[in-house]
């Protein structure tokens, strides 16, 4: 019961946010949503199956650029197919999956950290392609992203829309799209992890040979999870492109991949909630530090020579990765789960009628 109440509260809060918070928070929140989708995908691969990937940023790039290319009208210098944006988004996610599938001869045969180094090739090769395939990607300067359109509803600033005296621009509209996508992505991943595939993935991570002995097709699973995780990356890329409204190749580098690894470690390896918590933490930290840099000691404004907010954020979450592994195996989500019984215990003590009924009913089961 309390679980249903919790989710109703979360949903109500999500709906209420665009009516109260300004553009900065909405944009930060949208980045966090996109990051959360990507992190869930990476957590399926790295957290649940034990396959390290440094190439996640590549699949975000594939999703983002495929969407732009498919949805944009062709111009004199840039190609485009001018498909309906919703169809283009679906195809972009599939394209990311195909890209992951093409890498599967390697993804299925290498394990753990070996795969991590091999996937570095995706980043460097991918960025090389992004910079050079100018008719498709726009080269160094990137391309503008056509707005999403769903059943005639455009996710952009025009046509104007005012709801309850709040002007609904592109960020407000995208907020709901992002929340729906994240909910769907999280629900699906939860299903994968709790069902038969999840058990198989965890067994591959914990003991590859044992997994093979009990009949898990190890290589096929590795390839499959890699494809699934790249599709999550592609979806995150599409959402990111919609929020940014411009895609530039510079962004999809090694650093972005490292960010995603930091997210899943900080949040908690192998769980959906952990990925979401980590994504919120890592993607909001630089934004918050930038916004409040005057108020926080030791952090200087960008360009003034001191520690800039972006650098401070990187150092902080780099250190967070190390300290989480040293002191908090299970990440922030593990910590939450550990302290939850204490919290409920607190609530029970506040309501003495429950505490007296609790042990009695339980003791009646004991012979």
């Amino acid at each position, binding site marked *: 019961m309390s679980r249903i109440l919790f989710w109703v509260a979360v949903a109500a809060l999500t709906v209420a946010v665009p009516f109260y918070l300004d553009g900065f928070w909405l944009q930060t929140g949208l980045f966090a949503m996109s990051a959360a989708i990507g992190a869930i995908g990476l957590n399926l691969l790295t957290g649940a199956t034990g396959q390290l990937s440094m190439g996640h940023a590549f699949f975000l790039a594939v999703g983002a650029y495929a969407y732009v290319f498919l949805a944009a009208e062709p111009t004199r210098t840039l190609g485009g197919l001018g498909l309906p944006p919703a169809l283009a988004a679906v195809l972009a996610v599939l394209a990311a999956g195909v890209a992951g599938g093409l890498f599967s001869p390697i993804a299925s*045969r290498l394990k753990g*950290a070996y795969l991590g180094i091999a996937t570095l*090739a995706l980043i460097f090769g991918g960025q090389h392609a992004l910079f050079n395939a100018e008719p498709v990607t726009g080269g160094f300067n990137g391309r503008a992203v056509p707005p999403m359109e769903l059943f005639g509803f455009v996710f952009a600033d025009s046509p104007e829309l005012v709801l309850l005296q709040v002007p609904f621009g592109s960020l407000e509209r995208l907020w709901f799209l992002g929340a729906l996508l994240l909910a769907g992505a999280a629900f699906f991943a939860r299903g994968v992890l709790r069902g038969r595939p999840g058990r198989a993935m965890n067994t591959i991570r914990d003991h590859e040979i044992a997994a093979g002995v009990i009949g898990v097709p190890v290589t096929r699973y590795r390839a499959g999870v890699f494809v699934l995780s790249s599709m999550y990356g592609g979806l995150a890329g599409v959402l990111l492109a919609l929020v940014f409204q411009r895609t530039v190749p510079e962004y999809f580098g090694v650093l972005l991949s490292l960010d995603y690894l930091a997210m899943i470690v900080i949040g908690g390896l192998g769980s959906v909630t952990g990925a979401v918590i980590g994504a919120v933490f890592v993607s909001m930290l630089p934004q918050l530090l930038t916004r409040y840099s005057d108020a926080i000691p030791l952090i200087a404004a960008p360009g003034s020579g001191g520690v800039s907010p972006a650098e401070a954020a990187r150092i902080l979450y*780099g250190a967070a*990765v190390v300290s989480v592994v040293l002191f908090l195996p299970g990440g922030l989500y593990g910590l939450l789960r550990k302290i939850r019984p204490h919290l409920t215990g607190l609530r029970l003590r506040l309501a003495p009628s429950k505490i007296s009924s609790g042990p009695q009913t339980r003791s009646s089961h004991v012979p």
Partner: protein
Amino acid sequence: MTTFLELLVNGISIGAVYALIALGFVVIFKATEVVNFAHASLLLAGGYLVARLHPLVGFWPALLLGVSAAAVVAALIEFLIIRRANVGSHSVLAIVTIGVDIVLTTELTRQIGTEVLAVGDPWADSVVRVGGITVAETRIVALVTASLLIGAFLLAFKYTGWGVAMRATAEDAETAALMGIRLGRVSLGAWAVAGGLAAVAAVFLCVFPTPGLDRSTSLAAIKAFPAAILGGLDSTTGALVGGLIVGVTEALMSGYQNDLAFLGRGIGDVAPFLVMIVILLIRPAGLFGTKEPARV
């Protein structure tokens, strides 16, 4: 033909430097089974110290200080973090080193800023001409130094007590511990050696014809990762061969860039990774890596 020979010599020389980095990487992996993604930042730390210290104390003392500092930093990472991390999977330890790398690289690139720091080597931009081909002195010194260091390391690995302890640990850590080998010391030593080698490599990555140490130097160091893995992560021979393959490919691809224009600008930087993919497709364990004989 002259161009080809010049490119080949340069490639072999830079390949020897990559081999130094890859060797440290492999040594750490053999001793502790950790894939050390912080290697690039160790290299940057060593190079940075040499570049900052040489105007104060001269090149050779600065080199000595830089190498020892990188060794100490590497040993500290092992002692304070890797040894204390209590995790089941080695992938997680690899991610820890990524965390370390993020912290170190961010701070060092902040210190470097937009500067290009000279390392103050005594060879500067002088060149040698042998039979029609022109090679920078720094390239020859790099080749000789790297060969000497690698040779010394391999001999030590084979004949000294330290080397035997290291090989025994790599073979079977538990049995080695029962024979009285102190695993902590072995892995501490491995990390320190790797850090030192990385610092030497840093100097040779930043000398002529490269302009100097700047924030992209750590990206150059990342090219040693494919070198290590295409040779086989658990093979010292593999590190050497891998380094040479990566160096020569990179030099040739950059040198003939104009003839390879259809591949796009800057293909030389991507080439090592493409070679790695091709080799991994044929031999997933790398050229000299041991295949795990598990079959179900």
